[in-house]
């Protein structure tokens, strides 16, 4: 185990344009990559996006107890009978896009986070970082962005709430039960 603390003067970073004060984050998967992970090889997908009616939004809100912001539901029917959804949730400090696979009965078959954006500045390690090289015990071996973060923990409660809301959406709008009820 080897570790080292580096303190970058905020002023230098600001001059070098190394801090992006806007949204920073990680893109883990595209929708296609998430589909490939959540479904057997060879599964095909048929887009089935829906716009929720006011009544459906009210029902989902009541059924799940979770607030709804987006009228649009991004859904795909998979050739194996399952469903694939892409949804996003807003946390206190972050926005998360995730993919959800549901069985026809509305059971969660899998979840993959696709993107996570934080309202937090990302640190880039450009050339000026060379000035820290060899200062203490050897040179810095990584170039590029600092992608990893430790410290104050982000909660995942909003993702759990998103899944509960999507399950209600599935039951009330997409399932056989919803279809036969003439929704």
């Amino acid at each position: 185990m080897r570790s080292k603390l580096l303190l970058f003067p905020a002023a230098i970073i600001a001059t070098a344009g190394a801090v992006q004060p806007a949204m920073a984050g990680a893109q883990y998967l595209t929708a296609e990559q998430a589909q490939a992970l959540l479904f057997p090889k060879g599964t095909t997908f048929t887009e089935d996006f829906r716009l929720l009616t006011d009544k459906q939004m009210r029902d989902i809100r009541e059924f799940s107890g979770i607030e709804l912001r987006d009228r649009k539901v991004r859904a795909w029917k998979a050739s194996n009978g399952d469903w694939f959804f892409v949804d996003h949730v807003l946390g206190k400090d972050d926005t998360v896009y995730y993919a959800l696979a549901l069985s026809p009965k509305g059971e969660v078959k899998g979840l993959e986070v696709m993107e996570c954006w934080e309202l937090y500045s990302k640190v880039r390690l450009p050339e000026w970082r060379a000035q820290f090289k060899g200062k203490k015990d050897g040179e810095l071996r990584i170039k590029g962005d600092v992608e990893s973060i430790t410290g104050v923990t982000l909660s995942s409660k909003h993702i759990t709430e998103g899944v509960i809301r999507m399950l209600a959406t599935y039951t009330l709008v997409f399932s056989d039960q919803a279809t036969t009820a003439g929704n």
Partner: protein
Amino acid sequence: MPSDLPHRITRAKPLLGTLVEIRAALSDTDAANAAIDRGFAAVAEIHRLMSFHEVTSDVSRLNREASTHAVDVDPRTFEVLRKALVFSERSDGLFDITAGARLVTWGFLPKPEGAPAPSEGSWKDIVIEDQNRVRFRKPLWIDLGGIAKGYAVDEAVAAMSLPKDVQVYVNAGGDLRVAGPLAEPVRLRTAIEMDTVPVIEIEDGALASSSGREHLKSFKDGRVGPHVGRQGISVGADSFTSVAAPDCLTADALTKVVLAAPREAEPILGHFGAIAYFYDPSAGWVTLGA
């Protein structure tokens, strides 16, 4: 993205109440995804066993029953409990999993369902009866939140079982472990105003951080953070620490000790081969241990 690395795959899932991120640098995408799946499965297992919130977890069963009879637990829960007691002993109670009761009082944890009200107790009231068998001398509410996340990270890295020359990275909401040939630069999110941007480079080891700052709550006449020190007082509300250690369970546990008493922590850090980077607004950054 660093250009001198092989193809890397990073995925994230919501587990342990936070976002868990796992990365493997392997050019074989299927092998990388399979390893990452094994990592997530291991983390989910630890969540199932050690969650304070899930009524069926070992922790919930212990809180409900261990004061009346000895309770059989999963070997992994047993290992975490045994190690928790080692940290309690070494730190003379600065690390104490029976702080769960206090965290419920302060509103950081929900009241455990069906568990008898806890009495004034400590880690000394936890009795290892036998292999995988634990009893409490009195009703206690234990919480493994200060150690299980680190353990889950270690378990994930072990479950991935990739060769030593493959760069692996597991981060459970800031408790992280890096394995493989390269150092990983890690930004510290301190929630404290500073005039520098702190970054820790960690190579073949673990890093965990704690700060009471972001999660302060009002309680009675004052403010409390989610860290309990001696005499059950809230500690670390204005300070921050990152601990680097050979494994993540150790790093995770020691952050609580450093936050509670940075000076007392020094020899303890040394004992476990760990280093703490500690910040408080009056002293600035101080390096402790090893």
